[in-house]
């Protein structure tokens, strides 16, 4: 019993310490955004890797998600004689939920793992220590550009995903289900309100912060050689994905509470 309590105590302390370290790394990295030297070139490089590099997977997932949404919903809506509002359903679903969440999950799988493995490899080979010894703050040089680039690029990737998803839904509705294209876009456009757009654009900002801070946190706390790098990479993807889905619920509830939709 005493041993079990001691184990619980150790685990709790480890958990609290991890949260504390995560908050410290994220806080210090973000505060560095306003301190000199400013690593603008590193932000652009990361924006290219994270943003431009993720465009193909975002386009593919967006298109097929919109398509399958139209395919599945059209048959259900047809039972109520409401097949004409397929565009509305696809647009609202994509913009409010699926666009931000699926894009973030894709970017998380691709980039949270990339950040954790890259920074983790640098940790275990003492490159991070070497950087500090050479007078460069790794939180400023490595972490801050990744966080900034992820937040900015995820915002635009989500917009691309939303647009491509609606196009995918339109393609399925018109070419497979024989619906009228202008009706699809008309119902999609008419149903949208500013709170829907706002909800869909606030989410990627929060999700971007989660992806980058979690990826960098696991990278910067990697221990134990190549095995440790592998462990950090897996944990970064798992934790960021779970946090994205959990925070999506919280943000949705919050936004619905404010705007009533």
């Amino acid at each position, binding site marked *: 019993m005493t041993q079990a309590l001691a184990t619980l105590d150790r685990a709790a302390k480890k958990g609290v310490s991890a949260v504390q370290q995560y908050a410290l790394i994220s806080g210090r990295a973000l505060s560095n955004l306003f301190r*000199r*030297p400013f690593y603008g070139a590193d932000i652009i490089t990361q924006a290219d890797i994270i943003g431009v590099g993720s465009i193909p997977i975002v386009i593919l997932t967006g298109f097929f998600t919109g398509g399958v949404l139209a395919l599945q919903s059209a048959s259900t809506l047809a039972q109520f004689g409401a097949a004409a509002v397929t565009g509305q359903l696809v647009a609202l679903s994509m913009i409010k939920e699926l666009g931000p969440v699926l894009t973030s999950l894709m970017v998380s799988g691709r980039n949270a793992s990339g950040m954790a493995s890259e920074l983790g490899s640098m940790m275990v*080979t*003492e*490159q991070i*220590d*070497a*950087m*500090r*010894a*050479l*007078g*460069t*703050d790794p939180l400023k040089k490595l972490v801050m550009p990744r966080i900034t680039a992820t937040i900015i690029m995820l915002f635009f990737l989500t917009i691309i995903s939303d647009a491509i998803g609606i196009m995918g839904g339109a393609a399925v509705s018109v070419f497979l289900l024989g619906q009228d294209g202008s009706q699809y876009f008309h119902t999609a456009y008419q149903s949208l309100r500013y709170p829907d757009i706002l909800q869909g654009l606030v989410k990627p900002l929060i999700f971007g912060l989660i992806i980058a801070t979690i990826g960098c946190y696991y990278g910067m706390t990697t221990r134990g050689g190549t095995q440790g790098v592998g462990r950090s990479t897996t944990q970064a993807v798992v934790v960021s994905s779970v946090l994205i889905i959990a925070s999506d619920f919280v943000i949705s509830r919050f936004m619905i509470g404010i705007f009533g939709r």
Partner: protein
Amino acid sequence: MSLAAVAPELKQPSPGEPVVVFENVTIGFENKPVLNNISFTVKPGETRILLGPAGVGKSVLLKMADGLLRPDSGRIFVFGEEVSSMPEEDLFALRARIGIVFQEGALFDSLTVRDNVGYRLMQEHLPDEEIDRRVIEALRFVELEHTLDKLPSELSGGMRRRVAIARAIITKPDLILYDSPTGGLDPITSTTIIALVMKQRDVYRTSSLLVTHRLQDAFVLASHRFNREANAMEPLPEGHSDPQTSFLVLSEGRLVFDGSTHDLVHSDDPFLKEYLS
């Protein structure tokens, strides 16, 4: 903007004041003590060789001297500044005066040799021509000026270590920390590295703290000097050792020896006798 322009002004130590001072330093990880109550000094121009079995905490001690790790208790002074309680921002300025060679070199694997060696100068936004000139000068010191555009993965282990030395000396630091610079290298390459350490000691009179578990390297350093004309090391007369080179020995987290080469080899301590045999 150069680092010097934004860095707070550092206190200048008075002549003869120790470059490094460890005062009752203790550190542990995950409730396991690693170093216990360590005290020693490194004087200007002095080379202190830190010996001890693998895993005794030699690298930890070296990282504490550079402010990369903080002790649990005790105080560490470098150039008169207490690094054990300094904010990281101030440490960056202090580290401009310290060169460090990591155990495996710790070169940035995505940067070329030129960018690795000139990293600090690039961060200070010096003109490209000056960076190139100083990088070539540092690489010439380690006889690797032909590797300028190579990536670290294209170099042998010994060459990587020599590039790491070039990176450490490019700013002409007042203190160099060597973490097992010959670890994992063959005897011939080790001798090349030791000759470079000796050249830095005897030509530039730089204070240094060198960690090693290879006794032969330590004693070559103590018993040889660097001949500038011949550009090679040569043995000191029989029975002589370099007066600026002395030893520290760690065992089970404690400093068990702090003294000259002569005192070390004539010590009656059973552990030292066994360790040196």
